[in-house]
């Protein structure tokens, strides 16, 4: 390396170290958010330049001369050689969902420090590595899915476990995202109208694309975006008119509406609702993430949240649980997310033109998503801690009324008054902001604050707040309908082995039946969350985090097994260390969720507390819900234990020489683009 480059990288390292030490050791006064941005950018730059290069060269031995499936199997449909920047954008758009926005906001209750460090360290050493290696291994196996790789490289049981894990995570994910949207829209005529309007807008886009201007998706998305912006202003008018009551819904009503929507979206033709909504959501997502980054750089907000709060002891009102392990399952997307392995072994490997590009696409896109997580953390921490807690805490955690809530929160050392909350609610066009658990409203508030500080001031804060709510809700509804369809498809695929007609995706009775089963499954958990006096997020988000991280553990088991079979056992630590960490985190979290004696954390303790308490309506159902959560958690841990043990047996037998290492890689074929590779 030339001396100039060495000096540049030393400067980057020094700047990163300075930023990280400022974040970590500055205690007495608030720090500027730019320290987080600088720390993140320097960490990503160093991680990409050195660690990912090491993984690419030593562990994976990327071969630019090897033809990728996009070249060998090119069909102009699934397998298409694509420019690396285009694949990067495509992959980022596919992996970025509401997770990196919501997780860091919830974890901000511990202060900005733990979440920020986990996002940076987790992404550089675990999340980016997982996405990168799974993408490459899928490329070397003709674009096989994670489940297929688990079956081929570990065992049939592992493939089945991966299938059940994916289905479970989908169900829990859908329930959680639906709960977030319900909590964001309840008693909000403005929000409910705006989000309600996205459904006819998506239908209109579908018709536009099909009949008026076939294939002009960008044009239709721009039109849809303009209509959604008009709907935001329409929502403001509605909320101030006599029609407001018609769009003011309680949580339970919204839950029913969303369940009905989920069923309809799953059963309606894809072109009519799912596809246009997906386009619209992506359009808004990319634009909003870009302007949020710009807003943070322009405003350079000060973080009001302390580095560490008293809630690291597990007494947090947003969700109960100690810093370890709960901070690490609360932030999944942004640090490491098992869900990404599904995308890395889905469409992306079929578009990669050259093996060496997997580094930029796999590792690089995850870094971009991690930065979205940092931005969400900044947005949450720019709020006054008292405001953040009043918005994000369930009524059962801080008191049933606004007066009780502000008293409790102020007693914790985070002063807030009911008047301040009322003014803030008025500024954003809401009646109240108390008890809006789920992270989305807090993120929207932070985002609105950043946007309004850079453009328009308090006068337009309400518009920015509802823009942010619309952005998140659009995101979430897209995940909801796409996830319901995928879960339905997986269910049909499995049921097709029992009775063939059930597996036919064109047979309407099967579509309706499996859609109903899927919606009922996530709808049940959603209903449970809505009726939970602790806010629902307290029980469901950790469950989702555990599921997601367990899926990451499955992906890392597959990756480690392949590395061992490739004869690269001395580098096994690259995936084994993150795997061990994830196993420790998820198993500890699962243990706490099931057996912790604190009823706010342990579901069985909560069930016992309910049973010993006074009789109330729906008592048996609530006890059953707790037991069900414990059973789901336990089942997933057992399943992942099976896959970890099966993998470990493979590693030991290969390393000890008892078994010949044999991977299922596609045979080497030299690329026809060799000249370019040189």
């Amino acid at each position, binding site marked *: 390396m030339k001396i100039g480059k060495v000096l540049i990288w030393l400067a980057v390292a020094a700047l990163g170290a300075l930023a990280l030490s400022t974040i970590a050791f500055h205690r007495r006064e608030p720090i500027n958010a730019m320290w987080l941005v600088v720390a993140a950018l320097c960490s990503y730059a160093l991680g990409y330049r050195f660690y990912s290069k090491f993984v690419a060269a030593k562990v994976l031995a990327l071969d630019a001369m090897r033809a990728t499936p996009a070249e060998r199997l090119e069909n102009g449909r699934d397998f298409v*050689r694509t420019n690396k*920047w285009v694949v990067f954008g495509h992959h980022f758009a596919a992996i970025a969902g509401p*997770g990196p926005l919501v997780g860091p906001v919830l974890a901000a209750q511990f202060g900005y420090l733990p979440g920020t460090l986990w996002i940076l360290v987790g992404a550089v050493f675990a999340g980016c590595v997982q996405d990168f290696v799974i993408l490459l291994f899928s490329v070397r196996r003709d674009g096989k899915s994670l489940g297929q790789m688990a079956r081929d490289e570990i065992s049939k049981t592992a493939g089945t476990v991966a299938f059940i894990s994916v289905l479970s995570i*989908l169900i829990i994910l859908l329930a959680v995202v639906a709960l977030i949207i319900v909590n964001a829209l309840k008693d909000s005529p403005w929000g409910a109208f705006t989000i309600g309007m996205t459904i006819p807008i998506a239908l209109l886009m579908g018709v536009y694309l099909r009949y008026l201007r*076939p294939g002009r998706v960008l044009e239709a998305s721009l039109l849809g975006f303009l209509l959604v912006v008009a709907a935001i202003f329409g929502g403001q008018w509605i909320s101030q008119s006599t029609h407001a009551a018609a769009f003011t819904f309680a949580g339970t009503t919204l839950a029913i509406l969303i369940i009905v929507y989920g069923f309809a979206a799953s059963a309606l033709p894809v072109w009519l609702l799912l596809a246009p909504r997906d386009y619209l959501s992506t359009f808004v997502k990319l634009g909003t993430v870009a302007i949020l980054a710009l807003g943070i750089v322009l405003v350079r907000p000060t973080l009001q949240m302390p580095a560490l709060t008293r809630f690291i002891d597990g007494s947090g009102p947003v969700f109960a649980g100690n810093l370890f392990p709960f901070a690490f399952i609360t932030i999944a997307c942004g640090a490491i997310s098992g869900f990404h392995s599904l995308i890395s072994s*889905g469409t992306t490997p079929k578009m990669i033109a050259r093996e060496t590009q997997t580094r930029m696409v796999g590792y690089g896109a995850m870094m971009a998503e991690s930065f979205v997580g940092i931005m969400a953390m900044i947005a949450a921490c720019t709020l006054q801690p008292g405001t953040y807690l009043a918005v994000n805490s369930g009524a059962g955690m801080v008191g049933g009324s606004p007066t009780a809530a502000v008293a409790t929160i102020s007693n914790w050392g985070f002063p807030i008054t009911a008047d301040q909350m009322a003014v803030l609610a008025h500024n954003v066009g809401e009646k109240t902001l108390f008890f809006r658990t789920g992270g989305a409203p807090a993120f929207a508030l932070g985002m609105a604050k950043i946007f309004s500080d850079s453009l328009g001031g308090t006068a337009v804060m309400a518009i920015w707040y509802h823009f942010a709510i619309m952005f998140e809700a659009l995101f979430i509804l897209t995940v909801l309908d796409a996830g319901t369809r995928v879960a339905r498809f997986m269910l049909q695929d499995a049921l097709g082995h029992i009775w063939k007609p059930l597996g036919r995706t064109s047979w309407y009775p099967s579509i309706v039946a499996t859609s109903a089963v899927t919606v009922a499954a996530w709808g049940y958990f959603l209903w449970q969350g809505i009726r939970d006096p602790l806010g629902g997020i307290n029980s469901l988000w950790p469950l989702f985090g555990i599921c997601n991280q367990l899926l990451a553990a499955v992906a890392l088991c597959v990756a480690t097994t392949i590395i061992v079979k490739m004869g690269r056992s001395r580098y096994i630590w690259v995936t084994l260390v993150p795997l061990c960490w994830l196993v420790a985190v998820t198993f500890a979290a699962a243990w706490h969720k099931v057996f912790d004696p604190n009823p706010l954390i342990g579901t069985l303790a909560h069930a016992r507390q309910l049973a010993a308490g006074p009789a109330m309506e729906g008592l048996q159902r609530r006890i059953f819900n707790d037991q069900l959560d414990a059973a789901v958690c336990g089942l997933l841990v057992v399943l992942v234990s099976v896959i970890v043990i099966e993998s470990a047996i493979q590693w030991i037998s290969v390393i000890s020489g008892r078994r010949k290492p044999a991977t299922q890689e596609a045979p080497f074929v030299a690329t026809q683009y060799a000249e*370019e590779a040189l």
Partner: protein
Amino acid sequence: MKASGDLVIGKSVDRTCEPTAETRRRGEEKLEHRTREARRHGKSHRDGVFSDHPITRSRAITRSHSARAVLKKMILIVRATLREIFDESAYDRFLLRTHASRSRASYREFARERDAAMLKKPGCC
């Protein structure tokens, strides 16, 4: 017919194989010929920005360090990325693959093919 897929760009060169009937129709030539031409003009074939897909070759843009050229390249990349994300490039590829033209009927066929893939594509968390 000028398909909008023409704007898909990349750094890779096209195949060295004989052009297909479709590429011939679209006025494309063999790589060697193009490279020879480029060398004659003192340029390497890598100086050009080509499509990664042999039948959606883009206009060649001379690599230059001028701000205008860099900006133009960036705009092309962003546009190509958006077209890929929003399936516009996929529709163009479908049209080329099926020798169809842009119409309601062809879009319906394309949507049927895409919908099957979308069934398996989870929206990420």
